[in-house]
């Protein structure tokens, strides 16, 4: 994705600087750590900051607020939950999204449910950050895209930002939010670069972004699929097809109004999502749009997802599994004919 891909940034006023996705994460965290003493961070290899998102934090914020953890995902996820219930705002860096599974009970049975089960007595302001590592030969134990799986757990909020601008604004909102938030960060987006404002900004949850405007077909793209959808739209435009690329940015809550408005304009829908097909975010979008506006659709919607298969190690087997620009463009052509 190029610097111009994110249509939402108004940089006409004020100065900007150029960052990549990881640097934007660091900026969001450092600003919130400076702003609010109740923000703390914990995670495996956090102090050494393997990917740079917490580099220098121990020196600036000290060992009480910046903590390396043992490899005890259930233990430290639960500790973050208890700390959140009693006055802190923890950010937990899970590194790889598959590590969330080791803390599944704490995330599902405690973080998502304590507020509800206590009749609203608890607030649980915490962020679980999780990298979706895939596409680089890490094999099945490190390559999942589980954002959709967690959408089936009421009580969690879920964001999947796709640009440096979006991750900074949404992560700051997540840290200030009083509910538990899962933030999914696709590794394939880490090198995305763009100019972002020097001045502070936040992006509210439930507000999607139109990454490219169009009139013939709506492509709703989730997470790592967004740059592929933008590339597909460029290809389609050469064939005279005007595709609109819509990025919901937060999956819970979800900006249905934006999707409905776009589909009302185009009457055609493709959804691209790196999750496995069954019960993917794409499935939910197609089902909801079909229920709500069946009569407006000129063709059956199409999902472009990863198949319901585990991720193999060898690159020749892995390479073709995920949504890419060619698959998304082909799907758009199909719904145009439909």
């Amino acid at each position, binding site marked *: 994705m190029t610097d111009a891909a994110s249509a939402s940034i108004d940089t006409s006023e004020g100065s900007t600087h150029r960052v990549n996705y990881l640097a934007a994460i660091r900026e969001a965290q450092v600003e919130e750590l400076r702003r609010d003493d109740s923000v703390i961070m914990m995670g495996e290899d956090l102090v050494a900051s393997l990917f740079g998102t917490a580099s220098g934090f121990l020196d600036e914020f000290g060992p009480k607020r910046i903590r390396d953890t*043992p490899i005890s995902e259930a233990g430290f996820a639960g500790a973050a939950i208890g700390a959140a219930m009693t006055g802190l705002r923890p950010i937990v860096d899970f590194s790889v999204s598959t590590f969330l599974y080791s803390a599944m009970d704490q995330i599902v049975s405690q973080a998502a449910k304590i507020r509800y089960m206590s009749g609203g007595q*608890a607030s649980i302001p915490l962020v679980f950050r999780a990298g979706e590592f895939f596409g680089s030969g890490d094999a099945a134990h490190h390559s999942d895209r589980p954002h959709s799986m967690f959408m089936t757990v009421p009580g969690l909020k879920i964001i999947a930002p796709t640009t440096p601008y979006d991750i900074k604004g949404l992560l700051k909102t997540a840290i200030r939010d009083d509910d538990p938030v899962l933030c999914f960060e696709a590794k394939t987006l880490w090198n995305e670069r763009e100019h972002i404002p020097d001045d502070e900004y936040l992006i509210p949850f439930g507000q999607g972004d139109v990454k490219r405007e169009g009139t013939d077909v709506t492509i709703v793209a989730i997470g790592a699929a967004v740059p592929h959808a933008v590339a597909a739209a460029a290809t389609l435009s050469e064939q005279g097809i005007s595709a609109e690329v819509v990025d919901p940015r937060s999956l819970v809550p979800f900006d249905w109004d934006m999707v409905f408005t776009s589909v009302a304009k185009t009457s055609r829908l493709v959804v691209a999502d790196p999750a496995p097909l069954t019960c993917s975010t794409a499935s939910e979008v197609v089902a909801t749009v079909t229920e709500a506006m069946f009569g407006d659709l000129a063709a059956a919607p199409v999902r472009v997802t990863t198949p319901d298969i585990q991720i193999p190690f060898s690159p020749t087997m892995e390479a073709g599994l995920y949504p890419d620009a060619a698959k998304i463009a082909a799907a758009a052509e199909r719904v145009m004919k439909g």
Partner: protein
Amino acid sequence: MMSTTDATFVGDLGPEFLREIQRRMLLIRRFDERATDLHAQGHVPAVIHTSTNQEAAVVGATMALREDDYMTGNHRSHGHPIGKGSDVRGLMAELLGRSTGICRGKGGSMHLADFSVGSLGESGIVGSGVPVAVGAALSASVRGTDQVALAFFGDGAANAGPVHEAMNLASVWKLPAIFYCENNGFAITVPIATSTSVVDISDRAAGYSMPGVTVDGQDVLAVYEVTAAAVARARRGEGPSLIEAKTYRTREHAEGLFLDYRDQEEIDAWAKRDPIKLFDSWLVSSDTMTAKELVSLRAEVEAELDEAVSFALDSEMPAPEEAFEDLYTNPLPASRFGGVR
């Protein structure tokens, strides 16, 4: 095993404090008995788990805490918040699923929570609340208060991974946490001998470089003494402790169950060491309370529970729409939750 009923330290506690210990034990016993009656009459949905005969193991621990200290517990959940000083009206109404319940009818018997007294919730998933208590201890440590957090768990949970992760974490971070095992000998029907690598759960403390002590869970003052020592250590910033109170539930795992896995002689032997009767005798023999004062204490507890039961029965059931409240701090309209209604 520590048993210190005759220890001189009790002289410092004062008669009002000792009376309050017995009042809370009686309140738990009679709350459970009232709840059992209401359950049999069909007023309580689903199951209830009573703490009958385990009251000293609960109250000896909770009385060693301050009101602003934190606590998490488990499915055997009535005793913990009562021991911590929660108002029994809201607890009883919760058991009956009323909208005046402490959790507004969303938790029920297994999941009581009363944040106003530091009760952060009782987990229906065994062992799952223990890391949460460690988090409360972390919070106290980071915020620089001298609060502590106590995690109640059973002998069954002592074999759950998250409990061990939590103990290690509290130890390496030197947190003001107390791991408190009510060892009643059975995980529903499974005896500890067939499930657990140690005879004394407290032996496991050594693996986490923390003090571990086993105490007679029927002796409320012995329990109080060891818990107070662990609390004091935590407040001094010296880190966590593990306490195991050996006790026994004389009723079934849950009301309405009739399972055949225990000898009647064993149940009878433990019933003879009823912690409330033991403490009655101690209060009289130590000239702390007279028999007459104990009678009036019982009447006081009975009156409090009469009021709680009336309050619960007179309270409204929640409206169906209330199911859509309390999920998030900034509520979404019910239409955003999906589903056909």
